[in-house]
């Protein structure tokens, strides 16, 4: 009888050890450490051949596939941060109607799915977030083309995508190609105070992105 109790105590002891010893990786991360910054680009493009850019004056919010255009303080901070990073890289900001070489869009993406999301779906409907006609680059009727699909991870919250479009060669190729993209994911990304630091991460890891 006594030994039976001891075996139970043994099992209890080992079980207690099992659960108490493990370190939870997620609880050991700060918000800054939780974030990931992913960039991708078309390596066949020479970014020095582009000189001017235009940027959207609002943000497309893609919420479980539903799209709306919004502009809050945080959105503005992100747009301004992208603007100044591109200017630091030597590109000149021009108005939408002034034949920019590059178009830049900032998109907020929300998905409440707890499973795996494939961000290639994001580009599949790109034309509905950033209608080529409404957007005013003057290339209505062209579809978008993007070769990117992000690696898949389980989703905890939203993401911010910054996309750079080749407007210069759109007429020649009959499509508006996404030639650079940056994606920010993690805790506390929608924050005006840290917007410029976050955008800087995307550009710092893309040294090829320069007009000179």
């Amino acid at each position: 009888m006594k030994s039976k109790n001891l075996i139970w105590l043994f099992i209890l002891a080992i079980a207690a050890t099992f659960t108490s010893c493990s370190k939870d990786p997620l609880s050991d991360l700060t918000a800054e450490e939780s974030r990931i910054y992913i960039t991708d680009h078309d390596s066949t493009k020479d970014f020095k051949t582009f000189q001017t850019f235009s940027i959207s004056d609002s943000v497309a919010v893609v919420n479980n596939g539903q799209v709306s255009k919004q502009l809050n303080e945080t959105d503005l901070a992100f747009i301004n941060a992208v603007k100044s990073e591109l200017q630091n890289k030597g590109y000149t900001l021009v108005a939408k109607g002034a034949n920019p070489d590059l178009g830049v869009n900032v998109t907020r993406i929300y998905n409440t799915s707890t499973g795996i999301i494939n961000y290639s779906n994001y580009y599949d409907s790109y034309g509905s977030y950033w209608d080529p006609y409404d957007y005013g680059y003057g290339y209505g009727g062209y579809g978008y083309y993007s070769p990117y699909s992000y690696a898949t991870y389980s989703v905890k919250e939203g993401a911010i995508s910054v996309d750079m479009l080749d407007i210069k060669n759109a007429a020649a190729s009959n499509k508006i190609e996404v030639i650079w993209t940056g994606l920010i994911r993690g805790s506390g990304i929608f924050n005006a105070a840290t917007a410029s630091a976050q955008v800087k991460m995307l550009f710092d890891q893309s040294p090829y992105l320069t007009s000179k």
Partner: protein
Amino acid sequence: MKNKISIYLTVFAACFISMSASAQNKLKMELSYNVSAPLGSFKNDYIGKTSFRGGTGELTYTINPKFSVGLNTGYQNYYQKYGRQLYKLEGNQVVSAVLTNSMDIIPVLLRGTFYPLADNATAKVLPYVSAGAGVNLVNYGQYLGEFGGTESSGVFAAQAGAGILVPFGQRSKQTGVKLGATYNYASYNHNEISTLNNVGINAGIVFGLR
């Protein structure tokens, strides 16, 4: 965490106090705290840090004073966080992230132990060597920032060990303190890791059950 440790210690103490006083128990129990240092690819490619979060337990059957066999199990958690760095993904994709690697190992081994001096009545310290083989239940975890997950598997494992047993008081009570080291081999190949080999140092108690 602290609470669980105190539960564990209470249970541990209860085991210790209630141990049987009958002479020459055939069935014994061993509980040890274990520190483990990864080796080779496990250390170089995944987690370099020594793990102080682990323990083992063994139910031991004494065949004769010199030989015993036991069912050995335990738990060890390895963990390391690497500062923000750039990593290449597929194609031209680059990700800036804080990388966290974790590894849980639960060994389930059949282990034999040999005490060469066990029939020497005057020996105050009993050296031993041990060898075991079985399965490691492995839980691999990798996170880029807060994104990632774990994958579990079971792999072949083998162990060689050596150390000393210091019996308390009368040898016949079969209670003592055990100090030792183990070399642990596990055939594991997953992503960047090609081995789970590690060296463990353990300290614990042994007591008779019946």
